[in-house]
Each structure stands twice: as C-alpha cells, then as structure tokens.
C-alpha cells in the first residue's frame, strides 16, 4: 500500500492552479505539501468536504475542483455520491484516501473495514469514471490520464498515513483560512 503523503506529492505536481478541498488528516498532509491560496479546508462538520466541493464546482465551473477526502469522512456522507452524480459537475475530481480507520479520531476501524469497496459504491451511485490505486508508480503513471477526464471522476487511493505532518487545528478552523481562500478565488 502506498503512503498518502507520497501520493499527494505526485498529485501536487499536476494541480498547480486548481481549487483543492481537503479535510482533517488529508488536509494536514496537503497543506504542508502544497501551501496555496486555493486550498479550501472543509472541517467543522465531518463528512461534508465533498458537499463544499460541489458548491465550489457549481460556483466556479471555469476551475477544476479536486477533493481529498478520507474514508471515515465519506462514510458519514455516502449520499453525497448520489447527489454529485446527479449534478455531474465536469470540473470535479474526487479522491478518497482509504486507510480503513478513523485516523483523526484514535485510529479505530471504520465499519466494514475488512470489506467495504468505495469504488463499487461510487459506481452504484452513478459515477461513470471510477479508478482505484494502491501502488505509487501505477498511480504516478495514470494520474495525467485521470485528470484529463471530464468529471465527475472518482479515485480510491488505498494509502496509509506516511510521514507525520503537523496538525494545525487552529489554522484549519480559523476565519483566516476561509477569508484568504475567498479573497483569492475572487481575484482569479
């Protein structure tokens, strides 16, 4: 299984000007890997990163929106997959990091940790472009093709936590994080 931060470093090479919506453990990794004014941190109510992203994708159809969700978070908002498939935003690419634990809440296993198949759920929810990766080099090779597809695109990243990154909760919950994103987005 690949490391999440290694997968994100590869992703960062390809999403230089995109809006990236991240949450909790994914956010802590991503904010360190790609500090950028178009990073949108979706926290406060767990599970809603993809819903924030849908609003962004509708509101800014001229810009790609990349979501970095976690499997525990997705389980808290599974119907979002149906809602997004219905709206079908062509500019939305959704990555779920599958480590089968509630990493930010003590490492407890998610329900169905031994069998749940998020790619199968996405297909059943109506997503037409669905990918799954667990090997870093294969992910590196296919990523340009994934990102060239018309959205919505769903990608399961079977990735465990890599190198520990600082958990800056004060920043992700701050007004500053939201205000600087909004101001920057309005300017581009």
């Amino acid at each position: 299984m690949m490391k999440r931060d290694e997968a994100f470093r590869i992703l960062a090479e390809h999403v230089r000007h995109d809006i990236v919506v991240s949450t909790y453990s994914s956010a802590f990794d991503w904010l360190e890997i790609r500090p950028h004014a178009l990073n949108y941190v979706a926290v406060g109510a767990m599970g809603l990163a993809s819903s924030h992203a849908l609003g962004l994708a509708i509101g800014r159809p001229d810009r790609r929106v990349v979501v970095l969700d976690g499997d525990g978070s997705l389980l808290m908002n599974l119907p979002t997959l149906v809602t997004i498939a219905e709206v079908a935003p062509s500019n939305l690419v959704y990555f779920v990091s599958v480590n089968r634990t509630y990493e930010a809440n003590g490492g407890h296993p998610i329900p169905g940790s031994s069998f749940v198949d998020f790619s199968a759920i996405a297909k059943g929810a109506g997503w037409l472009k669905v990918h799954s990766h667990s090997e870093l080099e294969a992910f590196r090779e296919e990523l340009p093709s994934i990102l060239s597809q018309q959205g919505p695109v769903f990608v399961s990243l079977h990735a465990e936590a890599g190198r520990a990154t600082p958990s800056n909760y004060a920043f992700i919950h701050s007004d500053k994080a939201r205000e600087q994103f909004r101001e920057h987005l309005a300017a581009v």
Partner: protein
Amino acid sequence: MTSQAAADPVLIKPVLSGHAIIRSIKAAGIEHVLSVPDITTSDGLLWPIARDPSFRLVRVCKEDEAIGVAAGLWACGKRSLILIQNTGLLYSMNAIRAIAIEYRQPICLLVGLLLKEDDVPPENSRQFGVRIVPRILQVLDIPYHVIESDQDSSALTSSIDAAYDESRSVAFLIGRSPVP
C-alpha cells in the same frame, strides 16, 4: 350579516402565495436553491422553483449536504437558499452549528413546518417537532421570521440581503402551505 362576516378578522384567511415568496427571493439575488422536498412547500414553492429556469435547483439527499454546498457556493460569491422541512433542520444541526454559527457563513434556511396548524404560532403548535424549532433557533442565535402571509414574505428580501451582507444566517419558518 355578510358584511359583518367579511369584517371579522377570524374569518379572513391570510393568503400566502408561492409566487410572492419566489419574487422576494429573486429580488435578494438568490440563484441557487438547495432542497430536500417538504410536503408543506412542495406544490407552492419547490415545484414552481424546479420549473423556473432562473433558478438552479440542486436536489440533495439529506439536509446537511445542503449546508456544505451553500458554503462552497458562498466561497464563490454565489447566493443560495436552502429549502427543507423542520425535520431536516433538526437533522442538519451539527453542520449548522459548525458552518453557520462557528464559521459565521451566511446560511439562509426556508423551513416548512410539517403539520403546523394554520394561524398558530410555531411555539404553540401541538406538534413537538414544530414547537421546539423557535427555541432551537434562539439557542443558536439564528434570527427567524414566521411566514404565514404575503405580508410576512415581503421581509424575505431584506433579511436575506442582511444575512449575506453581515455574513450570518437567517431562517424563515413557513407556517402554512403556500398556494402555487
């Protein structure tokens, strides 16, 4: 006898038209409506909105999704209105707590009150799920307006404008079924 009856306020039913509500929310610059269907507002509001090409209607599966979508839209400078039932308001409470209150995002809620009796204030309803709504909104410090007539619905435009101008939330409680 007839003139006395006409003058009796008890016998004069207030009119609440969906058209007046829609006119007010358009005047407030609402472009997007995010909704889970509610029987109180279905015929008079949601179906007309669904047929109106000047709105983009996003049908979400559950109400807390709408809170997230509204926040994302507002980050792009887009105004939205969330059209749900009081049961859905209760369901989405944690998202409202975080996004609307702690993060002070402008979340505008149009809430149909399921089975509320006409001309009875929501806090006096026999329906427990209706009766608690005003108190919950007070605890959350979300200003709310009870909409039971066209006169009430005229407050929508200025209240939505104020919510967006001041980046705070507001709720409108629809106390009777609007006529289409």
